[in-house]
């Protein structure tokens, strides 16, 4: 199609369907445009002008009346970007975490932010369990052992640690944390948690601070949101409180843990093990972890199943449709 035909198509569409601006880094592909295009006109600056500098000029020329923005993956939304969108009313996120969005600026401007809601909770909970069983029972480590032909040579593989009876402390008992707890109960684990505030409807023991939780746990599973308050909440004191046999599973955000300290603790044998799907500076992973058998590493893919993506599409579609028809949103995040 020629440039003028595309533009006239666009202006025809703009009269019919509400406009949604797609905001993404070029490394993140946007795979559910087909579904959304039946309801909205999608404007993706990267399709017009892939250079980062020209995206800003594109926005200032074309997007001044845009009220809705779809943020693909953890593409950062800075106050600079927001300043180019004076009519913006809603940011629709595609992840559970929204730490990549300038929430202070959104709050100041009264911009609503929605996230993936419950779309990923089951898959992330499954993954937390997968990591925990792997660390305790050395699944990946013994798989490596078997594949390298070492079994006939060495006879047996060292024993692991039993999951049943372990005291598991869940850091953040939201949608994901609750699904994790529900699964762990079936394995004979006892559950306790810490959260911003105690939930009176939940009968698991509550600890107001994570250090006390760690003192009374054998395992910590980190599944809370990353905010200024929670950054590095799993620090040296918490790891010391958890103890030498303690295991940490992180399916939240890398920066919830003081990664430098974690590596030291693991390398020096001051912590029993760790299962990590997220890291402070993805895709960089501390190389000291590569030789440890009591650690399981994964490249931030706890949510990556076709089912999660399908559920996410429903949430995105639902949020956008609700926004444009003034109905209640599916997964609005309270900005404090």
């Amino acid at each position, binding site marked *: 199609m020629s440039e003028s035909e595309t533009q006239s198509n666009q202006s025809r569409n703009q009269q019919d369907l509400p406009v949604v601006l797609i905001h993404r880094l070029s490394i993140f592909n946007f795979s559910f445009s087909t579904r959304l295009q039946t309801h909205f006109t999608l404007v993706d600056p990267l399709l017009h002008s892939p250079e980062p500098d020209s995206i800003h000029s594109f926005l200032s020329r074309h997007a001044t009346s845009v009220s809705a923005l779809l943020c693909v993956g953890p593409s950062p939304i800075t106050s600079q970007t927001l300043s180019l969108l004076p009519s913006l009313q809603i940011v629709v996120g595609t992840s559970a975490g929204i730490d990549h969005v300038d929430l202070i600026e959104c709050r100041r401007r009264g911009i609503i932010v929605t996230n993936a809601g419950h779309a990923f909770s*089951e898959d992330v909970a*499954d993954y937390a369990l997968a*990591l925990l069983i792997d660390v305790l029972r050395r699944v990946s480590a013994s798989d490596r052992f078997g594949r390298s032909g070492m079994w006939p040579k060495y006879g047996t593989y060292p024993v692991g640690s039993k999951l*049943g009876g372990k005291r598991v402390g869940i850091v953040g008992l939201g949608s994901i944390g609750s699904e994790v707890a529900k699964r762990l109960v*079936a394995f004979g684990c006892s559950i306790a948690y810490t959260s911003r505030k105690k939930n009176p409807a939940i009968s698991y023991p509550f600890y107001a601070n994570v250090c006390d939780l760690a003192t009374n746990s054998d395992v910590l599973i980190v599944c809370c949101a990353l905010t200024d308050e929670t950054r590095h909440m799993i620090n040296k004191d918490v790891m010391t409180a958890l103890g030498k046999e303690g295991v940490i599973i992180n399916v939240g955000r890398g920066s919830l843990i003081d990664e430098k300290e974690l590596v030291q603790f693991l390398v020096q044998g001051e912590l029993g093990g760790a299962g990590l799907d997220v890291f402070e500076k993805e*895709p960089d992973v501390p190389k000291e972890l590569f030789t440890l058998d009591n650690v399981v590493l994964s490249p931030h*893919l706890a949510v990556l199943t076709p089912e999660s993506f399908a559920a996410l599409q429903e949430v995105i579609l639902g949020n956008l449709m609700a926004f444009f028809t003034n109905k209640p949103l599916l997964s609005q995040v309270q900005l404090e």
Partner: protein
Amino acid sequence: MESIGVLIVCPMNTYLEQELEKRFNLFKFWNFPDKTQFLNTHKNSIRAVVGNATAGADAELIEALPKLEIVASFSVGLDKVDLGKCKEKGIRVTNTPDVLTEDVADLAIGLSLAVLRRLCESDRYVRSGKWKKGDYKLTTKFTGKTVGIIGLGRIGMAIAKRAEAFSCPISYYSRTEKADLKYKYYPSVVELASNCHILIVACPLTEETRHIINREVIDALGPKGVLINIGRGPHVDEPELVSALVEGRLGGAGLDVFEHEPYVPEELFGLENVVLTPHVGSGTVETRKEMADLVLGNLEAHFLNKPLITPVV
């Protein structure tokens, strides 16, 4: 009891060996290169055999030990003990049920998750240093998938309970249908395999269940199906399984046991939809100690003329 001869057939647990040494006159079979000569020399002092999943007491060994009174297995499976021969000769047999049920069930679920979510493959990928931002691959969700269990005994039931927490519909095959169960029963393994996504082997190994997973069952499970074996290697026709996996006719497998342990078919080493663990089903510090204590307890009870704790024969 220090004069009672006990033969332990292979290395299995340091704590168990130390405790046996304290209480009995312990013979470690692997220290005697000439087994025939050893048996001839000591046959009249050996009154107990301690075996495990790898080696037990077959007809030949039983015949060679005329004073044998009890076989205590450091395992729940007794496929390595000639139970018929023991019954015939009035030899008692004990195993280690219940104490290892949870660990084995935990591993069955752990293997299912590791296969479906490609956990070991992801770990390899990160350790290779090749992770680039934006790289991703979709894997298969575990929650909600149908789980078929062969053998609904202690271990099978424990697996079902765990899978239910992931909202997995449970179905099973057993020698007889169990009353009052909310799980769906199938009268044949092929039908079970046709109707589930993840098939888990959790029954004892007997003449009837040898190669219970054969070509027909593997075909029924299909290119999206996953087989988990925490039973015994000979439950599965291993060459058929290997070719099905290599050719993509089976979706994946999580295997803790193999037909010829410690040998694992090398064709499996390069497959990312397979997880291989070296028979670690009961392999935790906590459980191995409980198993050892049960073996010691059974032997002590026998030689003190008290009721055995966990007799099978």
